[in-house]
């Protein structure tokens, strides 16, 4: 059979199997095994355990459980609330300080955790009730946190960027840097919308400035400074050429655990076990998808599907921006249904050669792809963050959360468009710090 037709059949079969409700990783294994069995014979199944093991046999992957532990140990404390409180106390000159502080805290927390749902939960648990108490509209309170939480996968360290780096064999350090300014751009857009929306709702008085004494400003610092120092330490270690992302992440994880224990008195074995259990659950889930997606991409390339698709796209004589538009729509749709990690693992190895052939920068593309995945996190039907918000603020209806999030989706689309016109937003920092990419 023509590999391209076969590719189409594989795509349909994959959608069909994944929509059955089987777990994503097992589903990918089933699809891979069936197609290998039919087109490569029984002997090809023998290789499955070796490929599965081999895909995990990578030191770079170690950074995933490490960053997850880092995020989970901070998320188990009230550090999220401390972060936005500290920001609010210092940002008294800014109108709407609370929502601005919450978004800022999301960005900072994202810089420690690498995970979107974790960011959402850590800041939202205290931030949403506080914003509502002070009269911010429910839609803004829920939407800003849902959207702010998505920054977790864009602002470094980011688990999705690590996965992209591994799937495409690009530099994880460079990917991290590429996410910084687009992340800040998004935070800015989110803030502008939140303030405008609150003002338009006639809640102008809640935007009024509050004042804090210097004493209040300083007394909160001991609780947030250690985390800020860890962020700086992690960045220094990674870009000062001291250590690899995995090594840095391990130190970060240990420090965050210790800080949670010392400053937030997270002593009890039960509380520590909760952190460890949640980290194990998330790490195992992600690593298993990575291993299964590795088997899946092995199947695609051993049946020559990957190569055939790349060749076929090459023969299509389309404008590179039309191509980029189509790819974006494809990613967006995939992101509506599948977790970011799964989309990246399945799509990146196929898309990357096409992207490079069309003259796009792979690091720039990583950012665009990640923002697409962020949109998926706050849009139905998957919208993991929407459910996290629903879980921490059960009395806000899912409809309000949803309608509150839609404007933030628009902000992300604007960010993607800006990135298309000004790719430097993403690639300037990595080029400046690490030299031009080859």
């Amino acid at each position: 059979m023509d590999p391209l037709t076969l590719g189409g059949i594989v795509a349909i079969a994959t959608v069909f199997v994944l929509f059955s409700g089987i777990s994503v990783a097992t589903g990918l294994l089933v699809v891979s095994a069936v197609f290998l069995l039919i087109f490569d014979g029984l002997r090809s199944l023998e290789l499955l355990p070796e490929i599965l093991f081999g895909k995990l046999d990578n030191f770079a992957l170690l950074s995933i459980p490490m960053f997850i532990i880092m995020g989970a140990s901070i998320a188990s404390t009230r550090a999220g609330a401390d972060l936005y409180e500290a920001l609010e106390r210092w940002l008294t000159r800014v109108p709407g300080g609370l929502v601005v502080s919450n978004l800022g805290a999301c960005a900072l927390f994202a810089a420690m955790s690498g995970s979107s749902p974790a960011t959402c939960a850590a800041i939202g648990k205290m931030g949403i009730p506080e914003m509502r108490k002070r009269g911010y509209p429910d839609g803004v309170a829920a939407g800003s946190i849902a959207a702010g939480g998505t920054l977790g996968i864009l602002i470094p360290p980011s688990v999705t960027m690590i996965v992209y780096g591994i799937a495409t064999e690009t530099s994880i350090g460079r990917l991290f840097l590429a996410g910084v300014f687009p992340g800040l751009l998004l935070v800015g857009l989110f803030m502008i919308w939140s303030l405008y929306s609150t003002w338009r709702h006639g809640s102008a008085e809640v935007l009024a400035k509050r004042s804090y004494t210097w004493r209040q400003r300083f007394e909160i610092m001991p609780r947030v400074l250690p985390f800020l120092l860890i962020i700086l330490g992690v960045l220094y270690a990674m870009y000062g050429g001291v250590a690899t992302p995995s090594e840095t992440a391990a130190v970060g994880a240990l420090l965050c655990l210790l800080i949670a224990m010392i400053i937030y008195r997270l002593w009890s074995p039960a509380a520590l076990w909760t952190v460890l259990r949640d980290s194990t659950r998330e790490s195992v889930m992600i690593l298993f998808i990575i291993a299964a997606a590795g088997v899946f991409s092995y199947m695609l390339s051993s049946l020559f599907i990957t190569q055939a698709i790349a060749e076929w796209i090459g023969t299509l004589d389309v404008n590179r921006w039309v191509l980029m538009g189509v790819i974006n729509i494809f990613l967006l749709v995939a992101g509506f249904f599948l977790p970011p990690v799964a989309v990246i693992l399945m799509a990146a190895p196929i898309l990357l050669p096409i992207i490079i052939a069309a003259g796009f920068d792979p690091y720039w593309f990583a950012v665009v792809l990640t923002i697409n995945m962020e949109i998926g996190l706050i849009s139905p039907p998957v919208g993991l963050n929407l459910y996290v918000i629903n879980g921490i603020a059960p009395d806000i209806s899912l409809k309000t959360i949803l309608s509150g999030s839609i404007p933030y989706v628009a902000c992300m689309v604007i960010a993607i468009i800006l990135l298309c016109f000004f790719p430097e937003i993403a690639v300037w920092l990595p080029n400046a710090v690490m030299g031009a990419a080859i």
Partner: protein
Amino acid sequence: MATLNTNSVAQTGNNPFLKVVAALSNLSGWIAASFILLAVCVTCQMIFVRFVLNQSTIWQTEFVVYLMIAATLLGLPYVQRLRGHVNVDLLPIMLPQAARKTLAVITLLLGIVMMGIMVFYGFEFWYEAWSRNWRSDTVWGVRLWIPYLAMPVGLILYMLQLIADLVALLQGIEKPFGIEGET
């Protein structure tokens, strides 16, 4: 929706088989979690040796990667028990109760068969390394059957947990896909 239920755990009712499997999955999960924690500590130790003591490290990199792989494989049954493997449950939610249950049975059976195949070849993969006494081609030269052991053990426990889920579903102890309520 690719949902992550954060607070659900597979129910066992009074079924002794389900209880035994639950205990095995929990044990496996604890081992996985401690492997991850150990990997954190060993990596930190490695950094200390390399950057503070300025000595070279021999076994750490390989060791922590094997710990992570073992944690992943041994964590599978536990994460299945915690309902932590993400899935797309859009279709199951839309289906009526009876069809949802049928679909749940089919997906569990698919998973069990898949894991059965993986266990079979996974055992071969391990046995080959063990009988031929393969060693990794690094300075440390670890006997490969040790890290490879996680493959058959983790997968067989995962398969057992899937079988237990199927039993719980058929006996009405668990709701199909863990979805509450009628649609």
